[in-house]
């Protein structure tokens, strides 16, 4: 009789603490990751590209992400850095890129070259109908003597290759 009672109490005492700990850790991880990606990425309709490589950003080493809407507004982490309606001569964007360029590791632009420039790219995300002059302006600011960012990544939606179509082209 006594043995049966002790068995019943053992079943009640099952320790759930490690499982709950792990689950909470996972929730915190996903919440942080989602929050960061949502801040960086504005809701835009990106053009599709077959050659677009999967974007795997390193959360520990965030790169500058510039979002450009169809009307030419430039946003970084949900904050408007340039608005064509209130033209400030791209002052805020220049300051931001200068700050980010200074924090980037530097390397020669080509093996053996004496030209030293930031070795990290920036990601430009623009709506499919954004006039390219707005992206060119960002490129021009990247080329300023003190910024010198020369690696650029253009965001595009990943398009699955059409197996039926043998020849590429539109």
């Amino acid at each position, binding site marked *: 009789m006594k043995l049966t009672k002790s068995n019943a109490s053992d079943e009640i*005492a099952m320790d*759930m603490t490690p*499982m*709950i700990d792990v689950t*909470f850790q*996972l*929730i915190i991880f*996903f*919440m942080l*990751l*989602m929050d960061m*990606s*949502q801040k960086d*990425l504005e809701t*835009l*309709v990106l*053009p599709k*590209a*077959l*050659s*677009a*490589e*999967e*974007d795997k950003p390193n959360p520990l080493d965030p790169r500058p992400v510039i979002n450009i*809407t*169809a009307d030419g507004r430039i946003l970084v982490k949900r904050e408007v850095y340039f608005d*064509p309606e209130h*033209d400030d001569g791209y002052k805020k964007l220049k300051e931001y890129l200068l700050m980010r360029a200074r924090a980037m590791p530097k390397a020669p*632009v080509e093996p053996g070259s004496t*030209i030293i*420039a930031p070795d990290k*790219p920036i990601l430009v995300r*623009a*709506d*499919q*109908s*954004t*006039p*390219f*002059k707005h*992206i*060119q*302006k960002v*490129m*021009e600011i990247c*080329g300023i*003597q003190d910024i010198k*960012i*020369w*690696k*650029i*990544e*253009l*965001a*595009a*939606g*990943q398009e699955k290759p059409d197996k039926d179509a043998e020849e*590429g*082209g*539109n």
Partner: protein
Amino acid sequence: MAIGVSRLQESTEMKGDMTPMIDVVFQLLIFFMLTIKFKLLEGKLSAYLPKDVGVNQTQAEPKEKVEIKLKVEREGTKLMPDDSGAPWSGEGAYKYGPDRVVRYSVGPKSSNEMREIVARVKELFKIDPKGSVTIDPLPGTCYSDVVKILDEVILIGYTDVSFIGDKSALYDKK
């Protein structure tokens, strides 16, 4: 008597029901796991800016480059960004319809057909696979026009792709 009471309290504490909390926690976990996937469907195309303009005063070594020019001949109708084909409402994002005409030029070769230009660039790639490509989007071009040609150039096999900026377009405020 005192011993009996303390034993009773211990057994009450053990009976705390964790099931609702675990249910909620799992619901949250499933929600975050599902929503986070949508943000990772993006891709990227790598390109470069001219290394000899703005970066350094020293002249870069001259290289043979394939230069592709883009010029918009007809802007085309503005449609809603979904695939419904409905005309643009006048607010928010839009896309251009199939009547948009972009003229591509590579050297003396010029065409409205992307296929013809891709064939020419393929020929040039066969001659010099280590060459580089420069894309020169003229005023009026939009992001998707440039991504289309950049995509084709990367698919051909070029790894060194850069852009030329038409500065007259940069200060053109509408």
